[in-house]
């Protein structure tokens, strides 16, 4: 199955720019389906980006984040060719992880 995480990391001198698009329903638990039944909450609880053994970005999310979240941030201390590991866990015990090279 294809990864739910699409990521692009580019090195710009000392700064690495990261963009990621994650496929996830991010259901709030407040919406009803066409039958009138509540669609249970299903959302990413933690999203983590690690590089060279260190956490460079950690997000604790709740239901306010929309479907298929898009994240963009920059960090220092990495260079071209380094590995960037991305992982997430959700409230139903689901998870996914992927690694990308900084370009």
């Amino acid at each position, binding site marked *: 199955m294809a990864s739910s995480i699409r990521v*692009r990391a580019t090195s710009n001198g000392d700064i690495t720019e990261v*963009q990621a*698009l994650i496929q996830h329903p991010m259901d709030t638990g407040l919406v009803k389906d066409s039958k009138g039944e509540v669609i249970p909450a299903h959302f990413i609880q933690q999203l983590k980006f690690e590089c060279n053994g260190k956490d460079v970005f950690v997000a604790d999310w709740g239901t306010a984040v929309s479907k*298929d979240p*898009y994240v963009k941030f920059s960090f220092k201390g990495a260079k071209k060719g380094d590995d960037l590991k991305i992982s997430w866990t959700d409230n139903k015990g689901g998870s996914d992880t992927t690694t990308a090279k900084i370009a």
Partner: protein
Amino acid sequence: MKARSALLLGSLSATLVAFALTSPRVIAADKVDPVADAKAFQNFYFQKFPDVKHEDFVNGPYSMNEDMKRQWQEKEEFPPYEFALDAGKEMFATPFKNGKTYADCFPNGGIGIRQNYPYFDTKEGKVVTLELALNRCREANGEAPYSYVKDEMASLTAYMAFTSRGKPMDIKIPDDPRALAAFENGKRYFYTRRGQMNFSCASCHVQSPGERIRAEILAPALGILNAMPIYRSEWSGMGTTSRRFVTCNSQTRAVPLEPQADEYRDVEYFLSYVANGLPISGPGARP
């Protein structure tokens, strides 16, 4: 008091009559002239927004607001329609149960042809949209049709639009009175007020592009279909042209028609034709 109001009324009616007489195209039974209509339509926007590059109109609200444009351009590096686009590419290549594929139903295998839709089918005597053609292809090959407004249909049209990106819209109106009637019908639909809110498509997209309706910036009608299908943040998902027509109707408190109703097909024909020459920018992302 009475004399003054009578004089005012008299002068007002005189002005109206004079105005009516001098307006060039007031006579009802004039010939349908799509070429002239398209030229007038495009010139209206080019003159109203002289700083907007002609091809930029297909980007809807982003052509009207610099801040929104910047945010959209950043997001285009990782656009929200990416998942639907990938799904559409895969679906397009997957054969039907009988072994045939979508490529067998379309010219050039269905690649790079989106800018030719909708077209007027002279055999049928009606406008045929891309979505209609796709479902007919499915049914002709023993497959169940898809919903016209979202999901699989939007993914398929997203892929087909993507293969045509940058190509100029190229809608043909054959020299057939039925085609001209369809164009005129679409034009009339576009300008007709409907719903309890009494809005026509023109109320927002001709009279107020670049202005706000509640928190949204209105798109110009010129090139408004070039970005279809779109991922709308409001929908948290993809939608086709039909989806937008249906929701627009509801928003003005008019009961929507069926997704491929004649009126919708005709207005799609009209709006696509008057955007001829402007590039396909689909699939698109909108707020």
